[in-house]
Each structure stands twice: as C-alpha cells, then as structure tokens.
C-alpha cells in the first residue's frame, strides 16, 4: 500500500495559540483512518490545513495524485484541492439548503463538466453531451445511496441523518480519491450511526476511496478504522491500530483525566 497523503510537521498557530503542533500524518490508499481527541484538540484545524481553508504556519502537506506523482498541496485553494481529488464534509452540515437534493449533487459535477462558459450558457452540443453524462452519473449515484426518490425535495427538508448522508454523497460526486469526513456521526441516534458505519465501508469499497475522518463516536471509530491518530492540545499523543489505542495510557488520561491521588 502506498501513501496518498502525508503531512510533514505541519503546525498551525493563531496568534500565540498553537492549535496543531508538528502533526505527522501518513494515510495509505484504501485505508480508513480516524483522527480523535477531546474537544479543542485541533482536529478540525488539521482538516482545514489539509483542505486549504487555512495555510499552515509551518510544515508541508504532500498528496500523491492518481498518476502516483507526489505534489505539495500546502496552502492550495479549497477549490483546487477539490479538483485534484480530495473532497470533504463539514462538522456543521453545509448543504445548499434551498436547493433540491438533485441540484446539490449535480453542482458537485461542475468541475468535471469540461466546457467553457459560453458553450455552457448557449447549451452547445458538446456542452450538452457533458451535461447528460453528468446527469447519468448523478442518477446512478443517487440510486445507489437510496436518495433518488427524494431528489426533488429541498435539502433542508430532509431528516437529519439523510442530510448527513447527502453531504457525503455530494462529496462523492466530485469523484474524490480521498474523502475527509468531519464528524459524520455527530448528532445521530444509534440506528443512524449503525447505518452510517456500513455506508462508509460500502462507499469505500464501491468507489475505491481512502477515508480520513474525525469522529467522537468511539463505537464507530473502533469498528471501522484501520488506524487511529489521537490529538490532544495540538500534540499527537498516540497513533496505531484500534486495540492499541484503546489500551494506551495517555489516551485514557486525555479523555478521562489523570488520577491525582495515585
């Protein structure tokens, strides 16, 4: 297995606060890797540095593209990052609320529709060919994830679990190789979480993805992750396979606190 994403000592400082310090991640192709840690540990900051929302104060992010070429993506724009095959979801759902489910997903195809502005506006034949190709792909995708029947509904009118799912589907529509999920199970009930667990595994195999996720739900994390990184106050305090993490003393301390009397 080869690495798809590597961070070399990335550090993010906001004024005097070091949100993430010397983070060294290595994510291999087709893996599911989880990033966990208590609130404020710097998990979302790490995500934002990878996807170009923030430019790291120090360090580099290296992505291996589909041709096996390594490229430095540090500080690249969010839209450029999406183009090279990294898609992400957000901690607080960011759907296009007033648009329909179908529109939400087909918007993500915009970057794959190879057409200049004028031919798109005039609906010239070569644009129309690209457009119908995108429509076929979106239909297949929506049918696959059981959202086809709801395609005409407004995104904001879907139940919460479905909204989360739609956000993942929308990210999938950009045809990523690496999918970053920011707390996909947040606010879900046990049944929805269970569905999500199998959904994540399913899409990983179906679309040959690598998944990197932030999650608080330990049941989900332990079940599907191949490897786990643990952050606390911006420092990487542990990394390894789930069983190692479960028994790691520092992780337990970070979550439960140190026993002062001992």
């Amino acid at each position: 297995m080869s690495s798809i994403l590597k961070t070399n000592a990335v550090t993010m400082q906001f004024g005097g606060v070091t949100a993430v310090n010397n983070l060294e991640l290595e994510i291999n192709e087709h893996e599911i890797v989880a990033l966990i840690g208590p609130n404020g540990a710097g998990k979302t900051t790490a995500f934002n540095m990878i996807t170009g929302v923030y430019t790291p104060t120090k360090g580099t992010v290296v992505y291996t593209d589909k041709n096996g070429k390594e490229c430095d993506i540090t500080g690249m724009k969010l839209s450029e990052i999406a183009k090279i095959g990294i898609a992400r979801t957000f901690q607080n759902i960011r759907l296009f609320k007033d648009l329909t489910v179908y529109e939400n997903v087909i918007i993500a195809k915009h970057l794959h529709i190879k057409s200049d502005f004028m031919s798109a506006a005039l609906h010239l034949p070569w644009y129309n060919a690209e457009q119908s190709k995108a429509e076929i792909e979106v239909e297949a995708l929506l049918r696959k994830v059981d959202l086809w029947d709801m395609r005409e509904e407004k995104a904001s009118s879907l139940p919460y679990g479905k909204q989360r799912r739609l956000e993942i589907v929308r990210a999938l529509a950009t045809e990523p190789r690496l999918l970053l999920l920011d707390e996909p199970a947040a606010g879900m009930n046990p049944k929805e979480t269970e569905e999500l667990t199998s959904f994540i595994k399913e899409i990983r195999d179906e679309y040959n993805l690598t998944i990197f996720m932030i999650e608080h739900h330990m049941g989900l994390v332990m079940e599907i992750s191949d490897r786990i990184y643990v952050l606390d106050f911006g420092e990487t305090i542990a990394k390894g396979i789930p069983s190692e993490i479960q028994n790691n003393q520092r992780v337990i301390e970070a979550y439960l606190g140190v026993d002062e009397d001992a």
Partner: protein
Amino acid sequence: MKNKRDLILSAILLIVLFCVSWFVNGELDSYIRRIVNLCLIYAIIGLSMNVTNGFTGQFSLGQAGFMAIGAYTVGIFTVPVELRANVFYAVPMNPLIAGIQMPVWLALIVGGLLAALVAFLIGTPVLRLRGDYLAIATLGFSEIIRICITNASSFTNGALGIKDIPPLNDVRYIFVVTAITFAFIAALINSSYGRAFKAIREDEIAAEAMGINLYKHKCLAFMISAFFAGIGGGLYGALLGTVDPKNFLFTLTYNFLLIIVLGGMGSITGSMLGAVIVTAGLEYLRIFDEPLEIFGTMIPLFRPGLRMVMFSALLMACVLFWRHGIMGTREITWSKLIAFCKNPLGFFKRKGASQ
C-alpha cells in the same frame, strides 16, 4: 420530452408576444408605447441585476454605473457625425472618436462589452468583499463611473449631456433585445455555471469545497450582469433620445433593486413581473396625483406627490407580507402553468401544504 414541449411552448409564446409588440407598435398611442418600452428595458436591467444579487447572492449596487456606460456608448456613437459639432458646442469632440458612427445594434453590443470590461476591472478588488461592504463598494464605483463621465468632456460632453441621439422607440426592436436577454440568462441559469452561481449564493465555503473557484465565478456573474445592464442602459438612452450624467445617479439603481426585491431575488420570471408592476404601477398610480372630486366635494389628499406615498405604502405591505417577493426563487414554468390550468384551486392548496 418535457424539455422539447417546453421549448416549443416558449417559442410559440415568443412569437405571440412578438405579434403583440407589433400591434402595440403600430396601433397604440405613444403613451402606451412608452410604458411598454420602459417595462421591457427595466426588465432587462432588473434581470441583469438579479444575476449578481439574486442568483449569485452578491449584493451589488453598481447597476446605474454600468447603465451609464452603455447609454453613453450609444449616445456617443450613434449621433450623426454632421450633428456632432452642434451637440459638442462647449468642448469639441475628441478627434479619436469624432468620425466614428455606428448603427444602434453595434453600439449596444460595444456598450455592453465596455460595461463588462469595467466590471472585470472593478471586480478584481471589490469581489473580495461580502455583504454590506460589497454593496457600499459597488455603489461607490457606480458614482466614480458617473463622475468620470461628467469630467471627460471631450468624449461625453460633460455635464451638458448628449442630445440628438436618433430616437429608438420601436417596441419590436426593444422586445427582441429583451427576449434575447431573457433566453440567454434562462439558459445560463440552467447550465452548470448557473448551478455554480446558486451554490455560491447558498454557501460559499461548501461551493468552494465542490471545486468551484469563487472569484472566477463571482467575476463572471458580475460581468454578465454588467453586460446586460450596459445593453439596457443603451436602450434607455436611445429611448430618451438624450443622455445626461444626472440620469444615472445612484438612486436609479434602487429602481432595479425594487424590481428584483418585489419580483423575487433569484427568479427570472419574477424580474419580468417586478419590472411590469413597478413601471406600469408607477404610471397608473398617477390618478392619485390628480385632484379628485366626489359628489361635488374635493377629496383633500389628492395632489401631486400622493402617488409616491401610495406606492411606498404598497411596497411596504409587499415586503412585510411577502418577504421573498412575489416569486421568491421560484419560476413560472410550463408544467406549473399546465397544472394550474387543470386544477386552479387545488394548485395553490398543494403548494401551501408543502411549504
């Protein structure tokens, strides 16, 4: 199949409307013609403003400036060469352009392109701003354009304005331009670029995460908007037969803001409705400006100016009760019209239930 039906129906509608414009042009008096022409021109500009404000969600108030560019281009280049010495009597016309005369359609396009170019130059710094800041910056630039025009006397005749523009009040001509504008923007909004614009309106960060280059798309929307505002402005100038910097004060922009707020931010058919209601409404409310006598007593309030009071009251009611304007982001589509014709009562019930 549905698309084909809609296309055919739209084509039929266009032909019918063209015949109507032919009739209006030939049979009705100049007052009605004038109102129809104004409705059409305001619809073009309202729609152009809707591209940035309604569809892309960027609150821009620069429309008057872009209109001025279009209007002046038409003004400068369509005045017959032999009349120019008469128009530019204070400062002679710059020899660079003194000999160039264009037909109206070419001057309209040149005006639109110039407006789009200026939009591109303005957009580079301004589109990095959001919300209120963007509104203020574009408003400022619109004034800068007007001041520049006022002071470039050898090109624009400064504060004296340009008169003797060959008048263009053929309803058919203006109708065709309006139809092209509407068809183009409708097609644009239904393309992948239009969807990208809507995505930016809904959530900029999510749109960017979907690979949409924010700056490029905002700039595109801004330029398209300016292009059609330029065309609309050119028609406006040609309709009036004269252009004057005072025509393009920033208050003019508010007319169009009114049209799109009333019609619906983000609705193409809404822009048309808004334009008709605002333009025709302002005209027909003139009865309030006339003194009124009932049973021999004068009703005291009816005097010049009451029209604007009534209009403002109507607007306030509209904004209070219809927050999203008449159409919101919805459109009048053929399928909706057909559903309505089949079952007029049930149509609204169903919609009420789903909201």
